[in-house]
């Protein structure tokens, strides 16, 4: 287990370095911060002066090293727009995003677990077909459209729920459902195939032969073991979940990191963009690591083979 953890940690470090390079590269290699900062009619002299002021006349690896060593201390520079440190801006917006992703995950499980188990137990029947078709349709659904349709129906027409904003539990319902609908189809398919595979195992037959009730067989024996692939994939899907949160937040004007980042991108406020990108990636990597560890603990085959 120690060796497995160590190997995962090394990989984690490499991925973090890679992401910081990506975040740095987006601005400094593809773009040119000076052109973005200066007005369009600025002269060559002014350009050179700013270039030097920002330290952009130095070799690129020196610049990256500076960026990285400051970033480690939580210093991503000041926002070009709000004149506050980018780090505190991003940190401030983190809780709503984390609440939303948690609620979305819960909603996805709430939809996917019953449907997945049901589809597996009623395999090759009308119920299964219906569940599978719902999943296929769900996968094709652009969730920003789903969100807008929900707003039109529940906020504008029926006036049941607030269209946007943050605060009460009513505010959570539509965004959580939207995000949940994004993750539910793949989760449902996994639960279905997991339960199907396990219902054919010998120990299920043994349990049945012992006279254990069907409900107990499904819940205690089958479902528990079907959880392993679901946990793994959900962990790996966490990045996707955050991507979905970006979309959901913009539709519902949710005051999280994603709306902050999208606004920062619109204002070309790159310190904030870089900071948000690196912090979000850190969370994703940490979650992935935890999932790897948990799965490694549950299933010894993985830590030896992987």
């Amino acid at each position: 287990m120690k060796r497995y953890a160590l190997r995962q940690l090394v990989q984690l470090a490499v991925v973090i370095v890679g992401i910081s390079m990506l975040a740095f590269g987006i601005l400094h290699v593809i773009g040119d911060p000076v052109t973005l900062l200066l007005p369009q009619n600025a002269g060559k002299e002014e350009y050179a002066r700013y270039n030097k002021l920002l330290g952009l006349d130095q070799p690129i690896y020196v610049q990256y090293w500076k960026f990285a060593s400051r970033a480690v201390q939580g210093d991503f520079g000041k926002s070009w727009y709000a004149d506050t440190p980018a780090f505190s801006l991003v940190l401030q917006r983190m809780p709503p995003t984390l609440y939303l992703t948690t609620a979305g995950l819960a909603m996805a499980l709430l939809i996917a677990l019953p449907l997945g188990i049901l589809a597996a137990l009623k395999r090759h029947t009308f119920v299964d077909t219906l569940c599978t078709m719902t999943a296929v349709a769900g996968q094709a659904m652009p969730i920003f459209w789903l969100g807008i349709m929900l707003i039109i129906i529940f906020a504008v027409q029926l006036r049941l729920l607030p269209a946007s904003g943050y605060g009460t539990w009513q505010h959570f319902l539509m965004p959580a459902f939207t995000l949940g609908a994004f993750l539910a189809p793949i989760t449902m398919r996994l639960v279905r195939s997991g339960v199907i595979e396990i219902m054919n195992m010998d120990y299920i037959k043994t349990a049945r032969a012992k006279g254990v009730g069907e409900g107990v067989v499904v819940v205690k024996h089958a479902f528990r073991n079907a959880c392993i692939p679901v946990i793994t994939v959900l962990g790996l899907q966490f990045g996707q979940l955050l991507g979905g949160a970006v979309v959901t937040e913009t539709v519902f004007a949710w005051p999280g990191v994603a709306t902050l980042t999208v606004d920062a991108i619109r204002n070309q406020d790159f310190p904030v963009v870089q900071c948000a990108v690196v912090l979000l990636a850190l969370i994703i990597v940490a979650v992935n690591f935890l999932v790897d560890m948990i799965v490694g603990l549950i299933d010894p085959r993985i830590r030896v083979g992987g």
Partner: protein
Amino acid sequence: MSAVNAGEVPLRSPAAADGLSTGAHRSWRRLWRLKWGLVAAAIMLLIVGVSVAAPWLVPYSPVEVDIRHRLAPPAWMEGGTPDHVLGTDAIGRDLLSRMMYGGRVSLVIAVAAVLVSASIGVLLGLAAGYFGPKVDWTIMTLVNVMLTFPFVLLALAVIAVLGPSLTNMIIVLGVADWPLYARVIRAETMALRERDFMTAARALGMSHARIIFRQILPNLVSVIVVIATLQVARVIILESFLSFLGLGVQPPTPAWGNMLGDGRVYMLNSWWIAAFPGAAIFITTLTINLMGNALRDWLDPHMKL
């Protein structure tokens, strides 16, 4: 050609794919899904046809402003006119015409971006699978970095720096979307490397390039086609989202995404402006996904994607 059978289809373990279902049941299921694939293909053909022929089919120019008829509801609603079947937007442009044109932009960007990402992903995947641990480690680390990162944010950030344009959209979506191909192709290449015909090819003294492109690649065509098809749907959604945020296709060029973004402002009173373009995206991606699934079942039912 050599005596080596390059067209050989790689065998996978069928036992792993499906628990206990009987052969008859499976082939019935295959046919059933294929039926949906054919229906989907027909619908897709219609969508592509309408998009291509849009200039000759549209009742109005997609950018023609008609302030007198602004925010007209669809024809079947109260206050709607048969002149504008799906209604008009905030400055009186005909929604149906804009939707027909919008499809062109979305489809062109998606297909071009998928060609870019498939090329990058397949080349890197082949290299990672063929050239041993060092190359493999480097490429797979890159894949992990890309997969860890929320794709949406990456695309947004790059577009913000480069500025939105048709070419930039294709490049960004193409460059950001290759890791999936690389991962699958790498695994398939590794499996193929152990096969007898590979040993034979090496024994015959073939060059690496020839082995990779003549012996390995032909075996992977069906996998690539299936992933690429499914990815077209994904890229359409992403492009729409970028356009929805105003960071993609720029007005007045109509695209489903930016129409949806425009409509969002008016959703309080004029729901149709947002509803129809979104429905077009949904139907198109659903159709492509059904096609992709059917294609997978038809080419290789044991493909694990």
